[in-house]
């Protein structure tokens, strides 16, 4: 029975399902490292997910735009929507210094309602798109038993997500920008005294986080899931925020957290598929229970940005 549960396809699913989590969580890592908590990620994902889906849906219906261009447009639109919502969130959190937890919930509710509204007006019934297809690797790597299925059978966005992790780690740890981000998150007063424009850095990170959240949503609707419906994210954005805590604000650890989480997800889906005698509700519950436990025992004390959720005003 073990071999029925831990099949190659489960591991492959785990990698694939981790994609939206990784995009959103890496984006949120940047945001939180600079001291801002963006809880509206799920709402931004929904908006980016819908807009990307809609563009691809139109492109595929029209059959005018060659498939890759339609997909590229979808991704760009999702990034743009994410950037806009990130800009709004930055304005709310940095300039207006609104309480960050609850303002994020407001952005979430807005994204939830507006994406559903647009969906009902523009599309109507749940549809699917062709979206991103598997990449054909040379040397028939796709066909290699076990390894091929797990690692070489994914679409472009999946590989992009995992490629983003070392890039994010490099930017945060080895560039001046990353240094500014970290300084602003740990000690905004000192950073300000050193001449760093705290507000500007935070605007940048929140917008980056928004863009990646939009991309995360699109990855869900046109690459991993290929369908849009009301509340298609079902809380993925919130779990992504939790993953940042769990990963100690470090990109590689966040990625491991995302993989662990999506592995549990893939497992519970498999358990349902093979009809094991576990009530489906408990299987569905499992990821959320694990998230709470992970939050409780996260090794966060070392790296938690000291200024997280604290607005900064010059001269205070």
């Amino acid at each position, binding site marked *: 029975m073990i071999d029925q549960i831990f099949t190659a396809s489960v591991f492959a699913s785990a990698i694939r399902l981790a994609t939206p989590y990784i995009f959103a969580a890496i984006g949120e890592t940047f945001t939180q490292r600079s001291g801002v908590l963006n809880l509206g990620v799920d709402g931004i994902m929904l908006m980016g997910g819908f807009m990307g889906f809609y563009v691809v849906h139109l492109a595929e219906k029209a059959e005018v735009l060659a498939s890759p261009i339609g997909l590229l447009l979808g991704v760009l639109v999702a990034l743009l929507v994410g950037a806009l919502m990130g800009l709004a969130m930055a304005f*709310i959190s940095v300039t*207006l210094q609104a309480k960050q937890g609850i303002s994020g919930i*407001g952005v979430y509710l807005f994204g939830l309602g507006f994406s559903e509204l647009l969906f009902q007006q523009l599309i109507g019934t749940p549809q699917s798109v062709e979206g991103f297809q598997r990449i054909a690797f040379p040397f028939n790597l796709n066909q290699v038993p076990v390894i091929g299925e797990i690692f070489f059978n994914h679409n472009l966005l999946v590989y992009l997500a995992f490629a983003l992790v070392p890039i994010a780690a490099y930017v945060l740890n080895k560039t001046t920008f990353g240094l500014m981000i970290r300084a602003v998150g740990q000690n905004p007063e000192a950073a300000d005294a050193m001449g760093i424009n705290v507000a500007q850095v935070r605007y940048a990170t929140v917008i980056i986080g928004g863009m990646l959240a939009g991309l995360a949503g699109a990855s869900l609707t046109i690459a991993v899931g290929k369908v849009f419906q009301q509340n298609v994210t079902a*809380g993925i954005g*919130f779990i992504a925020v939790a993953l940042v805590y769990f990963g100690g604000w470090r990109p590689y650890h966040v990625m491991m957290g995302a993989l662990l989480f999506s592995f549990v997800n893939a497992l519970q889906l498999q358990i349902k598929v093979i009809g094991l005698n576990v009530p489906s509700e408990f299987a569905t519950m499992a990821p959320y229970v694990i998230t709470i436990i992970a*939050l409780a025992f996260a090794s966060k004390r070392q790296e938690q940005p000291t200024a997280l959720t604290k607005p900064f005003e010059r001269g205070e």
Partner: protein
Amino acid sequence: MNDSSTVTRILRLTRLNQVIDFFPVLVALLLALVVASILLVALNANPFDAFSSMLQGAFGTENATAETLVKATPILFVAIGITVAFRGGMINIGGEGQMIMGAIAGTTVALIFGEGNGFITITLAMIVGFIAGALYGGLAGFLKAYFDVNEILSTIMLNQIAVQMMNFLLNGVLLDPADAGINHIPKTARIAEVAQLPRLFIPIGEPAIFERTRLHYGLLIAIVLAVIIYIFLWRTAMGYRIRAVGENERASRYAGINVKRQMIFSMLLAGGFAGLAGVVQVLGLQYRLQTDGSPIGFTGNAGFNGIVAALFGGLNPIGAIPASAFFGGLLVGAQKMQRDLGVPASLITAVNGLIVVFVVSSEIFIRRRAKRRVSVESSEDNLKKTVEVKE
């Protein structure tokens, strides 16, 4: 003496100052209405038609008003709890889950003790529902106090867990025996008539106002509790401690207040009221615990709407009363708007989000006004002292 301090003095004397503090909330609502109108126009709907249709749907007839108040009841219960939590510095997003837990516990009690004394059954069910919701909220409070787990994240997770728990129980142990079959609806048996909350109506006229509607005593209970919590928060030592921790955690700790205990206590209260929302929904309206499998099948999103109502009520339980009525009206009116104009009711969710953002963003203006007030007052005092010393 400059002009602004004279104006401030007049405002202070006439208490208009405190009224002006509500302005940001009203401005927030206005802004949200403006954005909603823009969205409506973009959807090819006339904003005036939409708003008047909503108004009609919410308060147009006696039945409509009753339905609005029926919808407002659980929202008010949750809003009272959220107010306590927020005032205690805890952001409780777990209203949905706590409501579900309270409903499960309360319904079970009502089913077990169904045939006995109605008053005792109802009271017991409500107490048990309160405790169940309180424990569920207290769990998040405990995780925050002792494990530093962000309570927003934990309560959101707990919400999802509660939904699954409810689905599991309603499809299994609690399922109505009369309905067990392949295609059953997930619901419990109906509670006995003595355990049902009586209908609420105003004894004027024949038939009495609201007599033939679904309005029930839950609303009255909620309003009474709102007043009690107001007194609790602002006129008791316990309430003061809660608010102190919410305003300034560090100062409270130095003052000797056990911050961890207050955190858990705030969440216990908040969860308890949300749990009450769940019990009262069952005892007063549906007479059984039923869902449609979706996360909001039972709660109707009262958990989230309660948060918005609490904010909109200025984080004051008394203010939550009209705020909840307003949101009940929004929900009921939106359905009519959807029927009349084809505008999806999900517009309301988006508008709710906007209201939250605008209300929370307006805090900065209140803070700036408060700072100016303090500095003006203290400079006046300094001036007086200098004059006295000189003489």
